């Protein structure tokens, strides 16, 4: 089972970068022009997140380097020990539904301290990648059509985030510990 998951990780990207152009060529798409056309949008896309990333990474750096983070993680440690959650990933789980970039700043912080290939690094990566920013999606989608009462949508979204967090923890513990 885990060999199969590892196989997916290894082959997904190579398989897609052969399959997609091959299929397109077969459909007579000028693949090189298409690629360049799409890739053009990459630069502005990334540049547009700079303000958000600066705001969040400065806040997280201040929080981390002054020892405030340690203080709060210590406060949380009875809970995290009880559930066997590494306390370092708790900020990511808490922030993920509210601010994707805020959570990303904490992921970066873990890479910096423990490395991306450590257990914590892989766990943080999985938590970050396996969810989307629930609050943002809700605001944009309902806001666009003027829905005021969102029924149970927020509850479902937050449950999904929580389950994603637990599932990431379970899968990573089974595979990487």
């Amino acid at each position, binding site marked *: 089972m885990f060999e199969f998951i590892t196989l997916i990780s290894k082959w997904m990207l190579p398989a897609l970068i052969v399959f997609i152009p091959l299929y397109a060529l077969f459909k007579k798409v000028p693949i090189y022009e298409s690629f360049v056309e799409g890739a053009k949008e*990459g630069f502005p896309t*990334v540049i547009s997140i700079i303000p958000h990333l600066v705001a969040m*990474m400065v*806040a997280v750096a201040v929080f981390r380097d*002054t020892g405030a983070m340690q203080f709060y993680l210590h406060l949380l440690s009875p809970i995290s020990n009880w559930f066997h959650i590494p306390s370092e990933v708790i900020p990511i789980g808490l922030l993920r539904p509210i601010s994707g970039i805020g959570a990303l700043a904490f992921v*970066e912080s873990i890479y910096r301290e423990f490395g991306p290939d450590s257990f914590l690094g892989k766990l943080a990566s999985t938590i970050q990648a396996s*969810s989307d920013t629930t609050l943002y999606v809700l605001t944009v989608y309902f806001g666009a059509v003027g*829905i005021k009462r969102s029924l149970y949508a927020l509850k479902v979204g937050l449950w999904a985030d929580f*389950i994603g967090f637990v599932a*990431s923890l379970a899968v990573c513990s089974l595979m990487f510990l």
Partner: protein
Amino acid sequence: MIHYIWMFLLLSGVVAAAAKGRIDLVTSATLTGAKDAITVCFGLISIIVFWLGMMQIAQDAGLVRKLAKLLGPIARFLFPSVPADHPAMGYILSNMSANLFGLGSAATPMGLKAMEELQKLNPDKQTATPAMCTLLAINTSGLTLIPTTVIGLRLKYDSLNPTEIIGPTMIATFIATSMAVLIDRYYQRKYSRKG
């Protein structure tokens, strides 16, 4: 919400530094934080430029549309209240398949179109319909084939195997998404019994 969190992070940092008598830590953290944000961003450019190029090919070749077609039966099961030939269904399918390819910038406009069409089927324009809630449940759980941002960040920190997390991520997302659909169904029943 985000305002308070941001303020909380900054304020607790300043308080902690002051309590330690090391207020200089705040200044150095601010400068390194800002500098690192820029290097991280530039680190992300490589993979995102590449992936968007790849995805343009997928779009031009009609792969995104093809995937949408394959997802048809799943969508009809997920959205029983939407007629199969209603335009909403088409947008829902495009939204799902763009999400799967990690085309966030294409998924959102499709999702918003789907919301507009669902709104036309909605008798009470201020209250969400169950179909809208289902669409949001799928969108907030974030099922994707290649998590480019995280891979880009791993690459930037010299990971030996940046794509190692693709498999675990897919499993975790799959679990989260299916549970989201189940929970959505549960609330849907509970709600319709009440109403």
